[in-house]
């Protein structure tokens, strides 16, 4: 997958949800449950296949759907400059 959390981005898991700060843009983003689940795996440097598998198991969805949802989510994170 080759994506990592961008330089300068701060992130903490607080009460089960991830809060992400983009200091340059002065933006604070709160992820929902699924987003937080994926982000915690990204934070642990998990690969795409691993995340797909865990997402599928956690939410009872097919691996294909998990893969599509993950790709979309990563695209959004990249667009928001959270991932590089």
């Amino acid at each position, binding site marked *: 997958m080759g994506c990592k959390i961008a330089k300068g981005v701060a992130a*903490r898991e*607080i009460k089960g949800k991830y*809060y992400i*700060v983009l*200091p340059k843009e002065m933006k*604070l983003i*709160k992820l929902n449950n699924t987003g937080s689940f994926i982000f915690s795996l990204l934070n642990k440097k998990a690969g795409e296949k691993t995340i797909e598998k865990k997402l599928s198991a956690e939410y009872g969805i097919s691996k294909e759907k998990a893969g599509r949802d993950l790709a979309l989510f990563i695209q959004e994170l990249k667009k928001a400059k959270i991932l590089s």
Partner: protein
Amino acid sequence: MKEKELAELTETALIPAWSMVELTHRCNLVCSHCYVVKDKKKELSTKEVKKVLDQLAAAGNLFLAFTGGEIFLRKDIYEILGYAAKKKFVLTILTNATLLDTAAVKKLGRLGVHELSTSVYSLKPAVHDKITGSKGSLLKVLKTLKEVKKAGISVRIKCALLAENYSEKKALTAFAKKNGYKVLFDPVIAPKNDGSTGNTGNKMGFGALKKIIRQHSGDWFYSKKYLERNVICSAGKNFVAISPYGDVLPCLQIPVAAGNIRKKSLKNIWENSPVLKKIREMKLKDLKECANCKNICYCNRCPGLALLEGGTLYTKSASACEIASIRAGCSHG
């Protein structure tokens, strides 16, 4: 920005999302109003500071500010900043900016420092340098700030308003706006951290304070609900401070140690300290002198200042009383 939501969540859940870490009390300047009391105790080592950062990150800390004294007097400062960058904090540094050259500023930019906060007391060298006790300090700071901005780091000017510089508030505001700097003025001069007042001799007189407050167009009326919720601010709730010697404080303005990081973990202190518990439980009714004051709805009393000025967290704060009475006067025409 969901900062308000984060502030409320962390305050309720007692998560120290905001922190200030004093890295040293040593300083190369001798500002006339400085509140720091120098101690001969041993400062936290590099390893100990890193351990503090590990523990802060684990506790949910996002917004970290390093302050002093002058942090660039520490030989390990870049190692500490680098470690903090790795731990992914939103990093602010408070410095007098007199020890930074071009290369150092570029390095700060590479490390991802978000904001540099420094004091500019006047745009007149004679005034600024007299306050800092260091000739040439203003020119040095202003030169450095330009480089800081160029390095992509946000700049915040802080200015304590004293008898000799309060009249320059407008000029400093315009200067900050022109250069894209944030600016923050503080009309209150806190006593030193041991309660002594040798540093408050240059504070503004009542007339000057009145003039400054009247320039402000804000609404100062606080509801009872707001006051009850803010008897104690974020200190010890979602804010924590660490002294250069490892003392865990509810706030730098409340120099009462809740524990020491050399003896116990931050988690243990944060969750079990009787000092923090007492502060978190403060209620408006506990403030005997303030609860029924006619100016209470115009008062943003700081418990730390009350402690330093009156001896306890529960007494009135003379500076807050002064400001509240002026605000009430303004509001009543």
